């Protein structure tokens, strides 16, 4: 594993809880992410994975512990870009304006050129002037992805970005997204990807960070060694895939059955 010095992200002893709540959402999280690495944070509801993402983005400040992104406390918009679950496009801006919104620091001409390039990348050049309401879910997701990639971040944070898509679109978008990220300009960004889907985690991750709920803690960190690019060499037939999948499911099931706040508590 990479040392803290050249790590893209390093978290040490990070805890966080809601104002006034005695039960912490996150407790003692240690994690490093290397440049270009894809780390998938997997866990059931209530494990604090989305909170963890917000802390890495600099949107939340940890109560204790330290967060470093590229060696300093993260500044929103400068050290990372986020792809959110619900797309979060501005309905009153066109597709091009939505992508441009994230590039406010650039001079206008450069911004326009960059927006055009990334619209091209995600195959939506024809829809530059369309409002989000006129697009399908998959297209909106690609706009949201283009908005994040256009910032050319060293760190890309993805918060269950495909959760709103149907099962087929979801699988296609996973591969499409990995291809687009690989095809974008510059070095590949490091990625922290939050999901509750075991299969999504196995398809995307270099390492899976399995989290347990209440309080949110890291349960295990598992390397995933399937060859890349996985949209060409589908790893799902490999026996190791089935083994890892089984292992992750067993752990998740155990967590959910022993979590008093889950719907399945004690039903094993």
């Amino acid at each position, binding site marked *: 594993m990479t040392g803290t010095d050249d790590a893209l992200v390093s978290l040490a002893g990070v805890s966080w809880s809601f104002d006034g709540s005695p039960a912490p959402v996150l407790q003692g999280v240690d994690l490093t992410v290397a440049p270009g690495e894809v780390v998938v944070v997997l866990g059931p509801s209530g494990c604090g994975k989305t909170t963890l993402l917000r802390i890495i983005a600099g949107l939340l400040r940890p109560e204790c512990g330290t967060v470093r992104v590229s060696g300093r406390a993260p500044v929103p918009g400068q050290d990372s870009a986020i792809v959110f679950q619900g797309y979060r496009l501005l309905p*009153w801006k066109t597709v091009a304006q939505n992508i441009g919104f994230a590039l406010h620091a650039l001079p206008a001409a450069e911004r326009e050129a960059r927006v055009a390039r990334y619209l091209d990348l995600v195959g939506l050049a024809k829809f530059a002037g369309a409002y989000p*309401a006129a697009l399908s879910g998959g297209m909106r997701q690609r706009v949201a992805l283009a908005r994040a990639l256009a910032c050319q971040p060293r760190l890309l944070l993805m918060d269950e970005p495909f959760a709103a898509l149907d099962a087929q679109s979801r699988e296609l978008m996973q591969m499409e997204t990995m291809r687009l990220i690989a095809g974008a300009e510059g070095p590949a960004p490091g990625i922290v990807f939050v999901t509750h889907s075991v299969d999504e985690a196995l398809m995307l991750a270099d390492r899976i960070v399995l989290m347990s709920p209440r309080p949110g803690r890291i349960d295990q960190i598992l390397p995933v060694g399937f060859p890349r690019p996985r949209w060409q060499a589908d790893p799902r037939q490999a026996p190791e895939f089935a083994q890892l999948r089984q292992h992750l499911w067993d752990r998740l099931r155990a967590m959910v059955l022993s979590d008093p706040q889950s719907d399945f508590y004690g039903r094993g």
Partner: protein
Amino acid sequence: MIALLRLGFLAGLVLLWWVASVQVPRGLFASPLETAAAAGRMLAEDRLAPALLASLRVYATGTLLAAGAGIALGAAMGLWRPFGRTLDIFVYALAATPRVAFIPLIITLLGLGVEAKTLIIFLGAVMPVILNTYTGVLNTDRDLVEMAKATGASQGRIFWHIVLPGTLPFLLTGIRLGATIGLINTVVAELYTAVTGLGGLLALYGSRFQMAEYFVVVLTLSLIGVTVTEGLRLAERRLTRWRAAETV
């Protein structure tokens, strides 16, 4: 097709008006033709235009001031929560009070002139603007604000690109409601303070049983109302074009 049906309905209304004017004893009601003739006379003798201008001047002043102040106050209440929560109960109370009840007080303080009229119109028009702007700002999409923060957007940028566009449909509805109440209060003000403008003509012709002239004034007021609200509706549609795609 709809336009044709509407024209047909208008013709039906005029017909109904004409039938009514034939039934009612002469002198209490005016027929459409008499009203049209009266309109021609009033225009030729330049009786209508000065009154119309006087009314429009106070109406526009009061309503525009109300829009400006209402947006500013409503936005401040929505953006700064302790301020809004302290004030909103009083604003609701004032909105529920018939503000024409203040007319005697306003006359005592400001007299019978333009200032009193403008204030009466302002007080009527400002309430829906404040309340709708406030509601709009409170309805700001938290997820979009978080997205903007994640791009490093400043507070000002969040206001201009997220809070304001999200509030716009509410705000425009508030202005449209305010403009309607403003017109009502224009007539009320002109009847209760120095008798001027279109409200003054209403009082004059009504008391002299000049029903044809009276109807001309009523129709003029109706025309102002329709023009203003339709204009605002058009502006609303243009400014919130992005919503059109949602309903398709």
